[in-house]
């Protein structure tokens, strides 16, 4: 087990190095000289030279790459170019709001999608199943933007059930007042694709021999579905939930932007608008690292769910 974890972590090193190289390449060659971006319109050559020296872009590429790797290792990405806030401080303060919205969203969405998928898989081929599937397909085809715009307009602006946007100070206030509508919108948007996906996972299991055996033994339908089928269908479901986890760190870009939630996603969009490279670089690298770790955890979870899975 430990040997497996160590080996897997060792295997992530080349990938991580690749991500570092990709980000470095993008922001150093493709991105152009940041000094011009920073100096703006009122700039003379001397100023630009000054900025270049400050940023270290006048040094050879390998030195810059080494500085970048040091930044990643120490977690010190310097300051944001537009607000001069420490990049690490930006994350420390923005991650909380993102998680306040996204963790409940993911939990509610996953539970609802599992329940809905199991129900329609159980009555597969029936009118209910077909209607739900058509509803999901149509629901999925409407842009997330439309859901946000319409829900914000109708539920918050016209009916006044929720605040239109904003963020408070206390956790309870944020969760129960400001996060509710974003969570509802998020659940509605992700419920349709997840239900469709989980339905296929359940359908794969529901025709297996062990299900017939369980029924033949006289087991209740509830037990067959919730214990036998669910456990076997849980591996792909875990995979799908795990895939969404790194997204928690990157924040929900659109939801945070519309509802003015001071999370990581909104910060990324602001950073892209302002060409604030240090912030984007830091987010990309950290989320990539998180993705690799989460992939490892997912493999360990498979093992916990299904002892037949061999970790090699």
């Amino acid at each position, binding site marked *: 087990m430990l040997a497996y974890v160590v080996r897997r972590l060792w295997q992530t090193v080349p990938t991580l190095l690749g991500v570092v190289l990709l980000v470095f390449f993008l922001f150093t060659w493709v991105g152009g000289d940041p000094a011009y971006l920073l100096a703006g319109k009122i700039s003379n050559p001397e100023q630009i030279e000054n900025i270049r020296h400050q940023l270290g872009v006048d040094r050879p590429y390998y030195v810059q790459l080494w500085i970048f790797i040091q930044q990643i290792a120490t977690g010190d990405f310097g300051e944001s170019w537009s607000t001069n806030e420490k990049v690490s401080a930006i994350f420390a303060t923005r991650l909380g709001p993102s998680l306040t919205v996204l963790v409940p969203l993911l939990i509610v969405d996953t539970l609802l999608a599992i329940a809905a998928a199991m129900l329609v898989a159980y009555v597969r081929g029936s009118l209910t199943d077909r209607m739900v599937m058509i509803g999901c397909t149509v629901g999925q085809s409407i842009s997330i933007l439309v859901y946000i715009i319409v829900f914000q307009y109708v539920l918050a602006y016209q009916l006044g059930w929720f605040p239109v946007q904003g963020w408070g100070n206390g956790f309870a206030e944020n969760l129960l007042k400001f996060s509710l509508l974003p969570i509802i919108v998020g659940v509605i948007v992700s419920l349709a694709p997840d239900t469709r996906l989980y339905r296929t996972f359940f359908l794969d299991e529901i025709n297996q021999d062990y299900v017939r055996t369980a029924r033949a033994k006289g087991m209740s339908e509830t037990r067959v579905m919730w214990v036998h089928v669910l456990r076997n269908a849980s591996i792909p479901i875990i995979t799908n939930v795990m895939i969404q986890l790194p997204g928690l760190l990157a924040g929900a870009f659109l939801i945070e932007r519309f509802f003015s939630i001071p999370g990581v996603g909104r910060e990324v969009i602001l950073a892209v608008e302002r060409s604030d490279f240090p912030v984007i670089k830091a987010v990309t690298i950290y*989320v990539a690292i998180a993705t690799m770790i989460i992939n490892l955890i997912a493999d360990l979870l498979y093992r916990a769910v299904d002892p037949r899975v061999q970790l090699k």
Partner: protein
Amino acid sequence: MTQAAALSSIGVRRAESPGLWILAWRRFCRDRVGLASFLIVVFFFGLMLASGLHLIAADWSKEVGVNYAPPTFAGPAISDRSSAPPHSSRSESAGGLNPADPLADVLAEIRAESGGASIAEVEAPTLIFGGDRWGRDVLKKTIKGTETSMFVGLAAAALAAFLGTLFGALAGYYGRWIDDFFNWFYSIFTSIPYLLLILAIAAVLNQKGTVTVILILGLTGWTGIFRLVRAEYLKHKVREYLQAAEAIGASHMRRMFVHILPNVSHVVLVQLSLHVVLFIKSEVVLSFLGFGVGVDTVSWGSMLNEAQSELILGYWWQLVAATIAMALLVTGFSLFTDALRDALDPQLK
């Protein structure tokens, strides 16, 4: 001689039994939902081509109605002009020119150049599906937006499918270090969340435009296709027909792209179709955020962006038009993809 005879006999038998594509087409025709969705896709294709060739909606930027002209079926606005934005000063003098305006001639000239619209033309109080802030026909605008969004989706999907197939073929066929290299490349791209990667590249490129969006989406979106094509190539390269191809002296390139590729093309086709939907959605989000198509291009994303502020003023038609157009195409394309997959791969259910 015997070989030729054997080959020709195979050829004869082939001619008698229907091939993969004919069988697939027959299966497809039996699927009524698939056929209906296919017609929707064809309709949008026609719309895109006609709009691209300037056969329809070429004059979408013409200001034909009053500002925020309501749809005809909703009737003309019982408006209080005071709530309208500053642009409404123009519509109040609708039909006539202000003789004291020193820029009138210049403006008229610009308008004549840009859309061929003449100011003297009477601005309609209502339009078929309403007008936007400048009184442009929302219906024509939607058609133009369809052209942009669909073109971006198709072109980006084609680029992604090309890259994914090429990389997948090389990795799966040659194996060893080439496989390792492309897998490494794949793991890099997949360890960064999709939208974040797109935004990072948009930040770096820092320029808007249709081509930029296509490049961003196509260069980041090849990973899923790569994985599937690679798996197919791994499966096919050990089959007997490939040994036969090697025996008759077919080169690596020929074996890869003439012998194997047609046998895996159905996978690519389904993926291509799937990615069109994905990229259309992504383009809408990118354009909405302002990192997508240029300001002078209209897409569903930019329409939704305008619609957001219009809705608060009560002008819902642009939102509804863009939403309906997009929902129709995306639903049609998704169902079409499902039907295509069922038709091409009947074992899969």
